[in-house]
């Protein structure tokens, strides 16, 4: 697109630089500027109207089609007035759309005629001066010129007639254009409706999706809760097994160190409170319930403190809950 634009610009610049083309180009340029101004003025109020941007594109596409259509028609009818006609056609559309514009159009046309007449008059004066010099031929030539003038006038009338005919055609074309526009408007409305329906549909779908999602979330939450409960249950079971395991290990270790004193009997019970570091190292061991026999208490303390490292669970939670602090009940079986 940009490439195309650049090409056009380059061509334009070349054309401008060519001295032969300067005058017509200046005229054409002036015309174009005028059109653009008019167009921009025309387009301005519409700018506020559109809510959606999408329909603009649609319109643009339609305009393009019509341009192509117009071009082909113009070619068929008159090749030489192609550019002019294009401008005229555009102008005619403008005129038909708004009547104030038509006046301006006519004024310009008359100006054009005046200019053409002035050029003709000058040429006539030159010719009269020449005729004076050449009297014999002058009369003939004057007659000729008069004929030519008549012809010119007839030509102009024909031209006028042609213009009117053109105007009629343009009017017809504008009508067609109008119809097309209306058709496009309908299409646009239809598209809008469709768009709105689509959006509604989308909204509906979205709502459905939201609902589905919410349900899924609810389901997920329930599942999570169930998993949490199951995890908690598993946790309790795990903890219980860990406690049992390490209780057994500690019992085994202590019993391997305990030497029952000679005075021990099955009625004796010494209760020790054991505090451990998470490493299993002994923090503190103290008698919380004495057997009443100092040697028996001593044997229990000695056993408890002789264990270099207590087997404790790696799980800190299990440790904290059960083995950070616990009791050892020393009592001989028999």
């Amino acid at each position, binding site marked *: 697109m940009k490439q195309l634009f650049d090409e056009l610009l380059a061509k334009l610049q070349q054309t401008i630089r060519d001295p032969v083309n300067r005058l017509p180009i200046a005229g054409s340029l002036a015309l174009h500027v005028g059109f653009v101004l008019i167009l921009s003025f025309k387009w301005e109020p519409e700018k506020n109207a559109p809510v959606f941007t999408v329909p603009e594109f649609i319109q643009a596409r339609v305009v393009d089609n019509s341009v192509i259509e117009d071009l082909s028609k113009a070619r068929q009818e008159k090749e030489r007035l192609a550019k002019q006609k294009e401008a005229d056609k555009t102008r005619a559309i403008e005129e038909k759309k708004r009547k104030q514009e038509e006046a301006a159009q006519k004024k310009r046309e008359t100006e054009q005629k005046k200019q053409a007449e002035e050029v003709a008059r000058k040429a006539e004066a030159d010719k009269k001066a020449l005729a004076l010099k050449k009297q014999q031929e002058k009369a003939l030539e004057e007659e000729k010129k008069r004929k030519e003038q008549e012809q010119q006038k007839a030509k102009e009338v024909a031209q006028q007639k042609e213009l009117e005919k053109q105007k009629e055609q343009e009017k017809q074309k504008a009508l067609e254009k109008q119809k097309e526009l209306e058709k496009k408007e309908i299409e646009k409305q239809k598209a809008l409706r469709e768009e709105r329906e689509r959006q509604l549909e989308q909204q509906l779908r979205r709502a459905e999706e939201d609902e589905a999602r919410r349900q899924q979330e609810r389901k997920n939450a329930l599942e999570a809760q169930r998993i949490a409960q199951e995890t*908690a249950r598993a946790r309790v079971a795990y903890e219980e097994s860990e406690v049992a395991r390490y209780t057994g290990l500690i019992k085994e270790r202590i019993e391997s160190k305990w*030497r029952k004193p000679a005075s021990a009997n099955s009625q004796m019970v010494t209760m020790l409170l054991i505090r451990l570091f998470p490493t299993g190292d002994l923090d503190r061991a103290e008698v919380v319930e004495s057997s009443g026999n100092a040697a028996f208490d001593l044997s229990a303390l000695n056993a408890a403190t002789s264990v270099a490292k207590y087997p404790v669970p790696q799980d800190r939670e299990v440790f*904290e809950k059960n083995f950070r602090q616990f009791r050892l009940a020393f009592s001989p079986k028999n």
Partner: protein
Amino acid sequence: MGVCGEGIGKVKKTSLVLLLLSILFWPLAGVAQLTIEISEGVDNPIPVAVVPFANRSVTPLPEDVRQIISDDLQRSGEFSSLDVSRMLGLPSRREELQFRDWRIVGQSYLVIGDIEYSQLENKYAVRYELYDVAQEKFLTGQKYNVTVEQLRDVAHQISDRIYETITGVRGIFATRIAYVTLSRDDKGRDDYRLHVADADGRRAQTLLKTSEPILSVAWAPDGRRLAYVSFESGRPAIYVQQVDTAARKVVSAHKGLNSAPAWSPDGRYLAMTLSKDGNADIYRLSLDTGELKRLTNHYAIDTEPSWSPDGKSIVFTSDRSGGPQIYWMGPDGERQERLTFDGKYNARARFSGERSQIIYVHQQNGQFNIASLNIGTGEQKILTQTPLDESPSMAPNGRMLIYATRRGKNGVLAVVSLDGRAKYFLPSSQGDVREPSWSPYTY
């Protein structure tokens, strides 16, 4: 401190989880603190290190106190004494202690001490301290000021204190034993001798020397007198002799048997076997009044009386059932009741230190062994295994007993603990050794 801080941080993190969990499972969290039941122990001896006592004087010491203590503890069967060569240090003062050194070599208890000789007093100051290695705690200690002759006594007393502190049972290392030896003199005549020695068999003294049999030696409860049977007059008679002064007197010399003297716990009576009325029966002699009371009256043999520690019962041997069995009765001979039923031969019972248990000679598979019987439960336990074991005598703490047995050709004395952990022979003196009697506590 850094480690400690980290620990606390982790605790805080987990404590939230803990809190949540405890809310979820509050009935579980409410469970009482974990209590681990410890009911079994190990039977291996308690490892104790007795460090050589430092000599704080210039002259060498006449006794190896460390060795005496170490041997005492080792012999009890309840301790194993660490060899000096395995010690990583030889501390004698508290400030020199490195408990780690003793943990490394697996010791539970540690004994240190020193001895200082005072020339001025001609006495030895013996100091010892007992430590719990695991707890790194001082347990007990004492200082003694003694003569050279008392050094062994002090060593035994230290053993007693260590033993009692750790086992809760009074030690018997400072007690004594009496026994009889038989050898042949130059002319091939029997040479009977009555001896008294330390419980470890050392420092034996002879109290009586005769060519006629001596038997049934019994310590008086005061630990200062011995009763025994001597045939020195050609017939058995019962004598009571002062251990220290050797002064003695005949307390019973009736026609027939005068044997098996047994002291009542208060020391005022002797139960004994007499056959003056035609048959071996048990009598009770009052040492104060000389009054004699017949306790049994049966045509069978009744002999070997022995008083219960509370003085309320007397056990004795009777073959009234057809063979020797153990019976008991009240101190006046009332309520005679048979106690042993297992085997054809059960004799010479002694109370083990409590009313509920007796030790005696039991025949089984042609062997004579020392057995114990729980009177309450009837449970019998064989304590010795050699073929001809006899004359058991309980140590005053009721933990072990001394008895006579054969080793090769000779009779020797052996000691066994009731739990079977200790078993050792006493160093044998010349000839046959028999009729041991374990003294009561001597201090």
